[in-house]
């Protein structure tokens, strides 16, 4: 592997200083499941690797005072899906963390790293987006927050500047009568990169009518895309298979996929329809099981 130095700061402030230091070409190391591969294959260069796993704040995984979730940027997937309270509230995020790589990858891979790496096929991004998650970033000029939906700016690109560190992802509280789900399509049973993926969230009113819907598609554009027309078609309607099929057909039109070795444009659009339909059915089932 290329030669580099290593630092493991114990505070966010110290990490930001190291990352901002013009004397180094520094990269952040969280779980290392992307960055160590990139460094080894020389697709990324670095003179300093900053391991952020010793920073207490980044290891925090806790419900917030208002009932939301504080997900530290260094928390690995396996810690997330083992928490019953998170599975209960943020099931679509848990769906994703269970299928990011195999167990060995989940022991190390963080949702923060999955987001920063900004792959169009990143499995955690559509779930984060349907929950309106917010990224908390620390930088040389202090802290700021921004919606996860605006965080990625292209394939492998994000809005972070030199010296910036993702501290946490904050998920707002969710309504009692809501449910969500994430699914992806891969040709194998496990361990592959999504050909297409979809995350859906629905909220039901007292009468069981859909009063809010969110659908975000993955791997069918340079960044995750929201299927707004499909969302609009759902609101005000009672859930039914016909309605989900109609939303699926509308979701296909929001996809702007490419042709590549994993699938053709036509195939990916078709998958968006199927995955939207299926995740909506699970999301509604999950919402209904909570209201009973």
């Amino acid at each position, binding site marked *: 592997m290329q*030669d580099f130095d290593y630092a493991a700061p114990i505070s966010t402030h110290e990490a930001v200083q190291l990352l901002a230091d013009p004397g180094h070409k520094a990269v952040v*190391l969280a779980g290392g*499941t992307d960055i160590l591969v990139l460094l080894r294959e020389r697709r990324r260069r670095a003179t300093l690797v900053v*391991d952020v796993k010793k920073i207490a704040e980044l290891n925090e995984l806790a419900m917030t005072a208002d009932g939301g979730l504080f997900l530290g940027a260094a928390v690995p997937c396996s810690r997330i899906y083992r928490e019953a309270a998170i599975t209960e509230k943020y099931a679509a995020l848990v769906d994703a963390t269970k299928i990011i*790589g*195999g167990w060995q990858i989940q*022991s*190390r891979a963080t949702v923060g790293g999955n987001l920063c790496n900004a792959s169009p096929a990143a499995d955690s991004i559509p779930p984060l987006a349907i929950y309106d998650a917010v990224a908390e970033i620390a930088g040389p000029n202090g802290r700021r927050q921004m919606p996860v939906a605006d965080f990625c700016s292209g394939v492998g690109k994000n809005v972070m500047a030199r010296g910036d560190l993702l501290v946490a992802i904050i998920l707002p509280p969710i309504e009692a009568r809501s449910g969500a789900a994430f699914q992806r399509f891969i040709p194998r049973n496990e361990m592959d990169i999504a050909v297409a993926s979809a995350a859906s969230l629905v909220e039901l009113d007292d009468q069981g009518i859909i009063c809010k819907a969110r659908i975000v598609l993955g791997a069918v554009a340079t960044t995750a895309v929201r299927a707004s027309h499909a969302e609009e078609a759902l609101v005000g309607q009672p859930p039914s298979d016909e309605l989900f099929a109609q939303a699926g057909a509308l979701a296909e039109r929001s996809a702007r996929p490419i042709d590549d070795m994993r699938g053709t444009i036509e195939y990916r659009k078709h998958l968006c329809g199927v995955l939207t339909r299926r995740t909506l059915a699970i999301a509604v089932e999950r919402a209904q099981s909570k209201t009973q």
Partner: protein
Amino acid sequence: MAKKKLISAKINGEPREFACEPRQSLLEVLRDSLQLTGAKEGCNNGNCGACTVLLNGEPVVSCLVLALEAEGAEIETVEGIAAGGQLQPLQQCFLEGAALQCGVCTPGFLMTAKALLDRVPHPSEAEIRFQLAGNLCRCTGYDKIVRAVQAAAEGTNP
């Protein structure tokens, strides 16, 4: 060249110290410096699982861990699972059930399977297949591996 650093870790229950460069993976150090050659290098990019070891009880691919990250950690490798000269039940079941041919994948499968049985003593077949999905085998077709894990879990020979 970045300076070598001295790392202390508990490996297979024993305190060990080793010097390593920041760029060295845990896999490299286990094999080349500590002569623990059980963990294998298959792909060196996280996909095959042949290099699986347990880091603080969790299975990880040691090709995607820096050796420096092992400071203060507990590491278990395949060399450490047979106690007092007796094969561990999983090893015995792999052997008797012919769950290996070339054997390159075996140390990795044993470590992931051990982590699974430590947490879930009686996993279903689907659970075994799902949790072992990060380990690839080019020889056996997996069925015998799954049966060996089931046998170890049930305390029967395959």
